[in-house]
């Protein structure tokens, strides 16, 4: 599904990702853990296509399609979704309008029919309710004045509505209290399925108690320093990232 091969990414002249190779098959959830500054968010931005995060070398494909040959919106239409660590505020654009525009743009890019307004509203309301999002919030400009936790719920709502093939969750647990974490994790888990892959980026093991990964990778020094099963996350929680920092 998502294949990354010997990826190198420089930001502002400094190489942050240095030869990263990773393969996440359909149906699996992989976690990437690592110390601050290891390049976790850089990896997420490079895959999603943010300006200034272009690869210097290597490849990344989603279901065989070259991600780096596509504009960010084409990657999204192809089925890539990035849940932002710091979701942006979009002043003046009501959440519902934003969601409908994004969904229809993706449908159009894939030559699929537009979704009808009643169907869209029904679907969004049901998905918002599952995430305990007040329907009134859907009328407000997206993320404007929302708390950190509300923004993260909105990210998961967008993911639920857009139904991507592959989701990257960048520090989705940051800013969440324990109740919100449970709600968000339930939302993410509801989207797990045999056709969908996920990459969960996190600094802390806590999130992985709720979103159980199939594989855990340690990102340090711009590459995957170690890979293992869920136990690896518990070991990191106990021992920290020191040994990787020294090695890097």
């Amino acid at each position: 599904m998502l294949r990354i091969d010997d990826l190198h990414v420089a930001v502002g002249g400094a190489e942050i990702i240095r030869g990263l190779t990773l393969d996440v098959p359909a149906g699996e959830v992989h976690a990437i853990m690592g110390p601050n500054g290891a390049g976790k968010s850089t990896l997420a931005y490079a895959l999603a296509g943010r300006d200034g995060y272009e690869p210097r070398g290597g490849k990344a494909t989603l279901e065989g399609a070259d991600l780096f040959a596509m504009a960010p919106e084409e990657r999204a239409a192809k089925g890539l979704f990035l849940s932002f660590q710091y979701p942006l505020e979009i002043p003046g654009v009501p959440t519902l309008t934003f969601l409908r525009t994004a969904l229809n743009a993706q449908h159009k890019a894939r030559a699929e029919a537009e979704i009808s307004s009643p169907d869209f509203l029904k679907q969004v309301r049901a998905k918002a309710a599952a995430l305990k999002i007040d329907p009134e919030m859907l009328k407000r400009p997206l993320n404007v004045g929302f708390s950190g936790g509300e923004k993260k719920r909105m990210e998961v709502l967008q993911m639920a509505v857009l139904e991507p093939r592959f989701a990257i969750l960048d520090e989705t647990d940051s800013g969440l209290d324990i109740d919100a974490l449970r709600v968000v994790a339930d939302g993410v888990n509801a989207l797990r399925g045999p056709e969908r892959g996920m990459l969960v980026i996190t600094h802390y093991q806590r999130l992985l108690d709720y979103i159980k990964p199939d594989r855990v990778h340690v990102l340090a020094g711009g590459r995957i320093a170690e890979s293992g099963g869920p136990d690896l996350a518990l070991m990191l929680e106990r021992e920290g990232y020191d040994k990787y920092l020294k090695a890097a």
Partner: protein
Amino acid sequence: MVARVLSAGEQTALAHLPPNVRLADRLLREKGLPSRRNEQWKWSDLRAAFDENVQFAVVPDIDEARTDAAAARGDFIAMLAAAFGQTETVKVAAGETIVSIDRIEAGQFTPRALEIELAPGAAMTRIVIQPAQAGLALDSVRVHVGAGGAYRQFILAEGAKLARIETHVDVAGEGVEIALGGVYLAGAARHVDLTSVINHRIGGGTTRQLIKGAARKGGRGVFQGRIEVARGAQKTDARQYHHGLLLEEGAEIYAKPELEIYADDVQCAHGNTAGALDEAALFYMRARGIPEAAARAMLTEAFLLEAVPDYLPEDVRAEVTSRIKAWLGGAP
């Protein structure tokens, strides 16, 4: 004294001026049309824009006294309006409420000057719509607001070779409420200038001003806004905001916000920004699948619509919204 060399436009204007308007004649000969050397016109060079190709309308009876009076106080738009365009006085009686819609249409040179007198407790909403045009568009209003009166104004200006819309408000009584809104859209080769002076002479009044605008490559937006609070105009509450969006390289926005406060028990605030769209927000939208051009148009539209007030009549609001959308859609 060495005579000033007159510009072609000044010579054309003088040729159209009847002999009796001596002050206007003298002003044009000695000072000339305002240019970038005049502080109040430094970003809107009327002398350069006013060339010999200006198409004068036929004005049957030039108001000579008014022309000279405007010339005497150096009010160029009012002077040109009295000599070559339209002047009008509107009086709103105590307790009365009126709504007016002024359109500044393309065509012959028709500068306009409006005097509005609001009696105590009178209320007026004035809407100005200036569609994009190739010529000169000059408009000036002087509003005198009596105690407890309310003046609300909204301008949608799409610019011209040179468009300048001036608003002068004289707060002449206690408890006056002023709301000034505006959106300017400066496309390629368009110049649009919204200039305002609000003078709180008497206390207890409020002013809310919010102007937003966008400029494209080759377009120029100008905002000049002065709020004066006179000595003794205590409990005045004035807020002024101008936010401009530079949509492309080569777009220009100039702003001069000014607060002049001589009273000590007042609340005044202002904010002024000019910049490009938030690239991070653009990326966020694109990462959700919204193509770049659509994302830009959505963010710009949302930005501008925040300055379109809720109080506009339904049909006006619809027209303003569709003009903004059309302007954004006509983008390269």
